[in-house]
């Protein structure tokens, strides 16, 4: 699911980074932020018998050694880990709304199986998104400019990681210009991209 996010203030701040000689009208750049995964949790407020779910539900995988059941929904494409305490974690959605719909479908499914399910405490806990910048990035310059928030260890991982504390978001920056952003919700992810774009722009390289 693609989201379009903006802020005129962000746009303005990007504009101010560019040298005046290149500032012409209509030199905007579109950034696609593609959400690849949304993780959410909810509670059913009742005990769930995992054996019953494994027997009566289709598309389920029972893992007795871990004590959970994996249930996969087709539409929206979601995988849910169901524990007997009634806590359920859903992964694989591509938007917050899809995650909610999938979770509700799942709760309905469990209701049909005979459990007294209540759909409560639904919360999106993690959102993973990717974005590609139209330029490549000097990772060492980026790390130098943003110490100590940014860290880059080529011997460990090819990307530089940048943690935004106030948004609780982590951005991994690759030299090809791709970035992956993880945050607690979509809004924070979008804000993280807005925040990091000027920093990446400073370290961009279009040479070679």
């Amino acid at each position: 699911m693609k989201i379009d996010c903006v802020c005129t203030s962000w746009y303005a701040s990007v504009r101010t980074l560019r040298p005046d000689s290149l500032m012409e009208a209509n030199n905007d750049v579109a950034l696609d932020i593609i959400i690849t995964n949304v993780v959410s949790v909810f509670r059913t407020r009742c005990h769930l018998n995992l054996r019953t779910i494994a027997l009566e539900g289709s598309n389920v995988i029972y893992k007795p050694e871990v004590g959970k059941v994996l249930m996969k929904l087709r539409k929206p494409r979601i995988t849910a880990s169901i524990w007997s305490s009634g806590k359920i974690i859903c992964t694989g959605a591509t938007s917050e709304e899809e995650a909610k719909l999938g979770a509700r479908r799942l709760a309905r499914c469990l209701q049909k199986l005979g459990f007294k399910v209540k759909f409560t405490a639904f919360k999106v806990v993690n959102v993973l998104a990717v974005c590609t910048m139209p330029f490549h990035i000097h990772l060492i310059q980026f790390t130098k400019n943003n110490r100590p928030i940014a860290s880059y260890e080529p011997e460990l991982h090819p990307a530089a990681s940048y943690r935004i504390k106030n948004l609780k978001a982590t951005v991994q920056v690759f030299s090809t210009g791709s970035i992956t952003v993880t945050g607690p919700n979509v809004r924070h992810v979008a804000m993280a991209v807005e925040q990091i774009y000027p920093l990446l722009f400073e370290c961009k390289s279009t040479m070679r």
Partner: protein
Amino acid sequence: MMGSGRKCPDCGSSNVVEDDLYSQPQLVCTDCGSVVSEGQLTTTRSEEVQGTIVRYSQSTAVDKQPCRNQIKGLKRVRALCRILRLPPVIEETSESLFAQAYESTDFLHVSLPKKETLAGCCVLLGCRMQGWPVTMGTVTSLLDTDSCLMGTVYKMVVSTLKLESPHTNIMDLMEGHCREYHLSPPGVPEEFCESADRLASRASALVELASDTWLMTGRHPVPVMVASVYLAWLSLKPSPARLKLSLGRFCQMAKVAVPGPASKRVTELKEVLCRLGQELPWQKGAVVSPQKVAALVGDVLKHRISLLKRAIRSHEDALAMDSVSGTEGLDVANTPSSTLPLSLCTDGVAPICEDLPIGSSPCSEGQPDFHQSQLPTPHAEGCQTVQSVRDSEDVVVTATGSAKNPEARGEPARGSAEHWGKRHPFVPPCARNPSKKPRLAETGPEVTGDEEISDSEIEGYLRTPLEMREFAETQMKLQSDSY
């Protein structure tokens, strides 16, 4: 000093207080000073009340003694420093880092392997802070631990101690690395011998070239170093015997381990060298094959900068030719010097890509960013068409996506499928050949999350009674078979 309800026998005053003489309890009259009564001077331990609030260990212990693991860890740090022959400054730095990290709360309830790895991480951090070139791989192999664990603990140490971990200069690593290669007479035929100094200087130049052409960024440094040493060795004496030897056999002969990606790096480096070799004036534009490029490496490295300029210029000319033939009436006359890369517009001092802290200054930021004209406006335009306005809570990107340059604006049809990597001659290899399909936003159904869920949607996820029975029977059969 509470007054007790007694009268002094001498003066009759009732102002009698408890006033102990050391450990002997006494009742004393405050008016005349006479002792009214006194307790026993010597008491048993259980009767003694004073001085029992403070624990014995707290009162007598002067300094906290380090625990056994901490002592072992410090010994390990010292041993590592002796093995690596590090100067005393680094040894002291590492010991203090270890002591600080060990006593911090983050490392309090940590497993023993992590504590053992902590010693190596402190040595590594100490070396980095003092600019001593040591790779993580070296320390990992000395500790005989897992590289993932090493990475985890290293990051923990850096964040716990709130330090900055400077990057190792790969050029410093290069010399030490080249000395590991056994390429001297006794074990190796005369034909294949090479001195470490010559190898180091040629390999360093190759590493600089690799960093200029985006082969170093984000990559592990060791495979690139091995690849450049191999190519340096080939090029210093490109005889048929040497050219026949593959990377694996070379490393076997030199008694050096071959890292996995090294052969890919060799291929990538050779590709870059071929492209630059093609620009040599005496090649007259003839294509250079990877097998024959070893002979040209020396010349390529000598004239690296001008060859890079020429390669970029000819790539741009080729692109301009394509666009002229592709779309008519296009003014593409200005592929000017403005499209030259930043660093090559400097005063000819060897500019190095910033992906390595090689020591020369990075590209000057004062110069305008010329390649803006070549930003992937087609990509942006392609996105514009896909743009969809979602619910009211979304806000629209200022994504008009039109070009920065007038001429680029005139190339709408060309671009949406073309990756921006194709517009530049030297880009990270994965950007040049994006083998994966570009990730498109899957336009899933427009959902609000609060829609009605009908029964029919759910029925697909439930088994029918017949299926349930069959499943239960099969399970029982399988269980009975397994017994």
